[in-house]
């Protein structure tokens, strides 16, 4: 990618969405169900509301209220059908039907955990999909087969491992080999573990942070992943053929605290949400720092990329900034 230098030392967001009226904790891009399929941005706020923003008019189209005023921590649309999953701290995962302008909860799953750990989904043969969420035990992860809600298994580290709570989850499967679902989990003790879901065992585990892992993302093509934690460093690790995790490098940051890390869908950029109010952009292959997006006046809680490369960042200052960075090629 021929990365052009930024025109000004202090880049501006393309626009800012206001009106959530409370801190933003979850963001997710999707396409509108009907018509032209305009880009939508979903945001979940501390006050338990999910706002549906039209990026065309830059205004909220709808507000979904389903978490009884408790913080919405995770939002994800399902690839088939126009359904939205939202996770709230009211210990509920709600499944919304957004097709044809409907805003109704069609199903919900009870969460046994009260933590901040975000769930993750893996699409299987439609309409089936797999859901991983923090489980009832302190260190457990529960895997459900959806939409039937049948429990597949519970992943529990061996006794005495003392990994602490799962902090972040990422389900994926290898594209080429037999599709065996894997789960990457970041734990409270700062380690990242790779689980084989069907065999319920840990393939590999590395301790890459000394503080709890706050966010991770994995690039299954390059078999490389990145994790951020409460400390002052980003860790990039890779997965070899023997399914062993290995730390490639760590990247020192000026300020501690990464709330979220996301790799852009074209796997060229990496964005981190910092507690220092800043979003940092890295070149994903080289981990070269490209930009520091300084706009928010409070900690950035989440970042999300759209399929066309648009970046959104949600912060405690109740604003969502939308950035147009090095266009997707």
């Amino acid at each position, binding site marked *: 990618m021929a990365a052009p230098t930024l025109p000004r030392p202090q880049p*501006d*967001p393309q626009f800012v969405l206001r009106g959530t009226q409370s801190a933003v904790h979850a963001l997710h891009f999707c396409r509108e169900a009907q018509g032209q399929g305009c880009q939508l941005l979903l945001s979940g706020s501390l006050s338990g509301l999910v706002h549906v923003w039209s990026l065309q008019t*830059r*205004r909220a189209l709808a507000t979904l209220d389903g978490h009884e005023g408790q913080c919405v921590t995770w939002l994800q649309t399902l690839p088939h059908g126009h359904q939205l999953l939202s996770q709230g701290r009211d210990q509920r995962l709600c499944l919304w039907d957004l097709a044809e302008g409907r805003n109704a909860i069609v199903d919900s799953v009870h969460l046994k955990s009260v933590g901040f750990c975000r769930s993750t989904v893996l699409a299987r043969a439609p309409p089936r999909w797999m859901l991983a969420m923090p489980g009832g035990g302190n260190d457990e992860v529960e895997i459900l087969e959806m939409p039937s809600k049948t429990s597949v298994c519970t992943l529990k580290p061996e006794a005495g491992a003392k990994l602490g709570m799962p902090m972040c989850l990422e389900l994926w499967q290898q594209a080429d080999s037999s599709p065996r679902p894997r789960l990457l989990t970041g734990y409270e003790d700062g380690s990242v573990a790779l689980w084989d879901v069907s065999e319920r065992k840990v393939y590999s585990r590395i301790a890459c942070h000394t503080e709890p892992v706050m966010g991770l993302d994995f690039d299954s093509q390059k078999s490389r992943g990145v994790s951020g934690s409460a400390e002052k460093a980003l860790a990039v690790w890779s997965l070899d053929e023997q399914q062993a995790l290995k730390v490639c490098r760590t990247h020192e940051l000026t300020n501690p605290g990464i709330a979220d890390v996301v790799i852009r869908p074209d796997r060229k950029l990496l964005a981190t949400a910092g507690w220092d109010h800043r979003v940092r952009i890295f070149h994903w292959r080289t981990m070269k720092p490209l930009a520091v997006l300084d706009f928010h006046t409070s900690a950035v809680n989440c970042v999300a990329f759209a399929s066309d490369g648009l970046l959104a960042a949600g912060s405690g200052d109740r604003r969502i900034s939308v950035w147009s960075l090095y266009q997707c090629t």
Partner: protein
Amino acid sequence: MAVFDTPQEAFGILRPVCVQLTKTQTVENVEHLQARLRAVSDSALQELQQYVLFPLRFTLKTPGPKRERLIQSVVECLTFVLSSTCVKEQELLQELFSELSACLYSPNSRKPAAVSEELKLAVTQGLSTLMHSAYGDIILTFYEPSILPRLGFAVSLLLDLAEQEKSKQIKIAALQCLQVLLLQCDCQDHQTSLDENEQKQLGDLFASFLPGISTALTRVITGDFKQGHSIVVSSLRLFYKTVGFIMADEQLSRVSKVQAKPAVEQRIAELMTHREADWVKNTGDKLAILIKKITECVSVHPHWKVRLELVQLVEALLLKCSQSLIESTGPLLKALVGLVSDESPEVQAHSDQVLRHFADQKVVVGNRAFADILSENLHSLATSLPRLMNSQDDQGKFSTLSLLLGYLKLLGPKINFVLNSMAHLQRLSKALIQVLELDVASIKVVEERRWNSDGLSASPKESARPWNQIQRRYFRFFTDERVFLLLRQICQLLGFYGNLCLLVDHFMELYRESVVYRKQAAMILNELVVGAVGLEVEDLHKKQIQTSPEELREIVTSILEEYTSQENWYLVTCIEAEEMEEELTVKQSGLHAITSGPTFQVTSFPDLPKPSPTICSMNSNIWQICIQLEGIGHFAYALGNDFRLLLMSALYPILEKAGDQTLLISQAATSAMMDMCHACGYNSLQHLINQNSDYLVNGISLNLRHLAQHPHTPKVLEVMLRNSDASLLPLVADVVQDVLATLDQFYDKRATSFVSVLHALLAALAQWFPDTRQPQEQSLEKEGSHFSWRPAALEKGLDNTTTAEDIEQFLLNYLKEKDVADGNVSDFDSEEEEPSVSPEVDKSDVCPGVEPLLPVQTQIAKDVMERCIHLLSDKNLKIRLKVLDVLDLCVVILQSHQNQLLPLAHRAWPSLVHRLVNDDPLAVLRAFKVLHTLGGKCGDFLRSRFCKDVLPKLAGSLATQAPISARAGPIYSHTLAFKLQLAVLQGLGPLCISLDLGEGDLNKVADACLIYLSAKQPVKLQEAARSLFLHLMKVDPDSIWLLLNGLYCPEQFTPPHPSLCPVQLGGAAGQQTPYTVNVLHLLKELQ
């Protein structure tokens, strides 16, 4: 009136005269016959036609010289007979035709005989009548090849008459006669319907005359304008009827290749022409020359009927002979198109109608050759256009441009052939750009200033203006408004029919290319977009609009981006703006931006470090911005409700311009916003701003980050705040924090604009969140007041019917209250920090340990007030004044949150004291106002501080200044000292009320100000002092009464009861003192 109905009777009376005439051929006898004929009915005459004609023809045929008079009367008589009868035999027709023609023929030459005009007229009319009277069937047999020589002879004779004669009557008669001869008469009873073959035969016959007729007529038509319009009209009509008949495509298409051998003798056969392809080509070429001559000459003919006839000529020829006269199409169309914008409405209407008809019939579009010719014409016009625009006067430009417009209209969608040729597009655009050049020399444009700051009050309904009415422009190359109108129409048509993307690209390139083209290119772009939607264009081609709404929106978006980009939107339009820029970028101190007024002389600034912008360049910049603004309005109009999506990028820059100082710019911006309101369905500007404040907030917050590049951002925020309601607050809350943060960064440089934003913000907050508890609380305060008995006492104390009981009660009350008062005063002394809060405020602070979450507006007011404390001591007086106003509003908003207000008031106090004690009089007054408000909200807190910190100083300065002002002359009122005295005197009164000062302090105030009641003081100070005492009287009427009476006592007091001793007050009655007037005045008020 026919007397003799039967042939027999008629014969009876006609016979003698006929015999008589045959015998002696005299004029008298002929007249005799004619007189008798009048009494015979038409039917009877028809029977006797041959008989009656005989003597007349005999007379004509008699050899030997005849008197002209006789011939004339014979011809007239003959004409009379023919007009009432019809000729049923072919021989008779032929013979009569020959005989009549021969009357004008001099045997010696082929020229018409030199006979009298009357005779010529008579013969011509006779011929006409003869042809009319020919019975339907025989007329066709008359036109057989053998008649050709005789017919040709008559035709040339008549043409000679039409051309050579002096008499208008004869000329017209000859032309009409020709028309009849060629069977093209347009009178009602001579309509001969011919079938195709007959038409072709006649055409073949007449073709021989075509060269002669056409050339002769051309000479007549292009002759002197003075010959009279009717002759030219008739000639034109004859021309197109004849040409249209002979050259009709319909006939020519049926002419066989080989000439059929006509069964006629050789001599005649030679005269016959065969209209085969070559002949048509040749004739067409020759006619083209003539037609070109005719159109050129006639299209500028001064009489409108002639031009109208030309339109008909064009219509007839183009409809009938479009193939045979292909060479002439160019000139014909040019003439027609030119006449579309003729000054005569009849001509205009008709040519318009003809054009429409052509378009309907697809004459142009359906015909390749035709379209080619038009494109050719447009090509050549485009080529010569720049030169023409340079050299022609307004009228010339007008006709050239109407021609261009006509071509565009006719060609319709086919103009793209021309536009696709880069060379031609360039020529066309160069010409448009050249002619649209604005005159930017006027200084008025630069000078005119907008004065009122809230010009956004107009709602679209109030000022319902047609959307396309635009600001008056001054062009370099023309002054006629109609030319501009034409140019706009041309551009709109281009946008409508042309390839919009291509055109927009082209003109955008020109726009970017040079500042010289920029304004014109923008004007053209604006009209192109309007044209593209086809709202204003009258469509001749029933074209479907090609540009889809999405495409159009994209095009508009790109233009909009270009218009509002940094380098095209933020132009230097006045010197002040430039200084601001300098101030920001070069960080040059010294020059301040608030200096200049509207009459600011730009030229008087020769020593500026940078080359100052010339008036021309500023004028040009102003126009550019205006045109771009107008364009945005146009775009809104063109896109309609679709424009809503563009509001997010368009509204902010426009709002920025709406607040521009330059009158023209702010007007243009306001009207562009009106257009937006109309387009997007908002019923007022406020509505527009209010509904789209989220977009505005976005722009504001982003631009605040780069304040140096966007110095107007605070202005926009201000305008937005003024036009919104409380629903805006959640959106704007974070921006306010940004503003405050930016203010903290730019305290020294941009404080002026920020302070006015803060003012707007707090004014808005105060308006959006009026304190509903206020009245109640105030009444509570009143009840709890220590002096609540006073109103009653006031009434009673002044009552004359005072009883001993009243006095006793009064005294008791007084003692009791005095007790309470003393107790309270000691309370205040020991615990002055503790505010006397009303019970309600107590309730609101439920849990003392936890800071309750403040409402947003309170938080904002608190933050702002904190900044105000710093800014109170700014160097700039204007800022200080504004800050005092802001502070005032802060207090109003914070009044219900004493916990927040009091500490802040505490911190603000020292600098507020400074404002009161040693500052400009204006600041002193404002500071008093703040104190007044503050006193109303937390009076107890302030009272003691005021009495301790401020009052002594003020009283002291009043006292020391008093002798000076008493002695001073008239100039004193211009001094600072005077203004300060005035300010203090004016400010103290209301303050005493709101602070509810105690007796001792009141006395201090009264004592200090008493001297100002002296008549020696300047009048204004006396007035101020009087009003001060009026205020004081509201607080404590009794002591003031006593005080005043101590100065001057107008009356003696008799005690209400003899047991009381009489009262002697200080001021002796009757004795005139300097205080008398004012004291009397005040005492009167007291009663």
